């Protein structure tokens, strides 16, 4: 029984983190049609901002939300500086890859200069450990497993139930038409980036609570988020969420049966095989649009 619950909790926990990251990537892709390669760096920045605010003496309840808000601003600024000026260029996908990579390197080395290479750790959301179904888990992990679906549900209802969310989906579906009906496309682009960055920042705060953080901590989660969006289909929000949990479970099971070394290779093999059979991802429809 312990083996099953080990895999179950591990998968649920990793899946939550991947979902938070992947949703941001998918949001930016669907609305703007570019891929943000500094998404992992956003995650790191969120964790470091939160750490800095806690170090200033702010209580966790204020520091963490404040860091998330700061990240939204950072996302907006990145969009305005390295993405918006390129919109309309024929090779925008490629150029944005390089500008966001460069911006990511800028921020990562900036963090290295400001905070130094030494590992840091954030306080947990909830202190303490517990045992469920024969597995020892920290309450921090339980909190993440519970909070993530709530946040994703909030995002889903924002995109489906509010005017602003609908506007965002309209831009994703048809940019010209949304401009014609008077939507401020530029502002909505900024909004997409801001939401994505704050979700990444929150994922960083979650991760900083149970693992040591360093300026390059975002690289691996970005890679996993990339796999998740390819796997789940990049053209929707729900696809990557399902795929994130699926991949979380896959990884947990593969770690258990095949060991830590072979898991990434297996994961990529599965990814390439998936794309050969279903290039648009397993949960996706062929259209580009948020749902």
């Amino acid at each position, binding site marked *: 029984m312990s083996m099953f619950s080990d895999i179950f909790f591990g998968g649920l926990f990793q899946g939550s983190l991947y979902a938070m990251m992947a949703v941001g990537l998918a949001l930016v*892709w669907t609305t703007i049609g570019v*891929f943000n390669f500094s998404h992992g760096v956003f995650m790191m920045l969120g964790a470091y901002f939160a750490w800095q605010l806690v170090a200033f003496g702010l209580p966790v309840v204020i520091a963490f939300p404040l860091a998330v808000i700061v990240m939204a601003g950072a996302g907006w600024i990145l969009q305005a*500086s*390295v993405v918006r*000026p*390129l919109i309309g*260029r024929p*090779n925008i*996908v*490629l*150029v944005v*890859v*390089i*500008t966001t*990579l*460069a*911006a990511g*390197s*800028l921020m990562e*080395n*900036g963090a*290295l*200069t400001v905070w130094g290479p030494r590992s840091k750790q954030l306080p947990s959301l909830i202190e303490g450990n517990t045992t469920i179904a024969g597995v020892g888990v920290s309450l921090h992990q339980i909190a993440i497993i519970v909070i993530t679906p709530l946040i994703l549900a909030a995002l889903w209802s924002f995109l489906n139930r509010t005017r602003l969310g609908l506007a965002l989906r309209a831009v994703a579906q048809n940019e010209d038409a949304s401009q014609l009906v008077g939507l401020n496309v530029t502002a909505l682009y900024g909004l997409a980036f801001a939401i994505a960055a704050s979700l990444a920042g929150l994922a960083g705060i979650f991760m900083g609570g149970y693992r040591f953080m360093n300026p390059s901590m975002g*690289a691996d989660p970005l*890679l996993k988020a*990339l*796999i998740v*969006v*390819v796997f789940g289909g*990049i053209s929707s929000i729900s696809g990557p969420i399902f795929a994130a949990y699926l991949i979380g479970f896959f990884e947990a099971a593969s770690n258990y049966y095949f060991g830590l*070394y*072979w898991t*990434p*290779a297996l994961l*990529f*093999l599965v*990814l*390439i095989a998936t*794309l*050969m059979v279903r*290039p648009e991802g397993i949960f996706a429809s062929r259209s580009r649009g948020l749902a």
Partner: protein
Amino acid sequence: MTLLDTAIPSAPGRVTWNREAIGFVAGFLLLALLPLVFGDSYSRHVLIMIFIYAIVASNWDLSLGYGGVFNFGHLALFGIGVYAYSLLAKQAGIDPWIALVASGVIATVAAVLVTIPILRLKGIYIILVTFGFAQLVMQVIISQSDLTGGTQGLVRVPGLYLFDHNMIRDGKIGYFYIALTLLVLSTLFLRLFVRSRAGASIVALRDNEEYAISRGVSLVRQRMVTLAASAFFTGIAGAFYAAYQRNASIDVFGMSLATIILSMVLLGGTSTIYGAIIASFVLTVFSEAMADFGAWRLMISALLIIVIMLVYPSGLVGMIRAAWTMVAERIKVR
């Protein structure tokens, strides 16, 4: 239609073969004379690294710029060259020169294999799969640590030899000329390729896929040819890199090297071949000049890349062309 049989007829605005050949010979003669000016082994080391980067970047320009295939696994082909050479020359004890050529062949085979999953894909999905391929290669190398040394890498990889010449002596002059020869061969091959009918057909596929296919260009074959052609010299450059550094490490699969080389391709201006070579000079010299700045060096480089991409979307070659047109206009007015 074979690969390089008929040249495309000249067109207005197209540089003729003769003029390009003159520029080619003059440019590389200049490079061949550089050791007369730079005698110390440090600046020669920088030049050798520039030549390696230039080969990798200009070959990437073939698939990325001309072919329009967003192959983000290009550095994996370089890495395959590094490891193929190291394994063949060190673990199997094969003659270094044979291992060098074999590495190019192995990288080409690997490129053909990657092409299979991306044949049905477009744009961003190609980025993701090729990216995944690069990670896959890296993970396989790490997990086979008995043979490849895993994350530790391999040391004491055999170097190249030229008769009885001691390669370390005389400021690495031997390695300098081998690297330059490889760059000349690679550039010659790339320019011949892109000016051939095959080159024209891959550009046609990039610019208007449906029309090109309807005119009888095979997407499957040309995409495979493009990637295979861009892989051969990349693999050889990887093998040379391993022979020159005398070691192999998984750092070659890292994001930082990929970012540097990609910025060379884009900074130079895509679909030029020469642009990538010029940009590898500019970026490497720039980055070496700022060696004392530590973390600031990477930040300044990143900022520079962003600014150039925002201001000159067509890269350094675009910048040079704009300047040249301005000068030409001035002369005409007079």
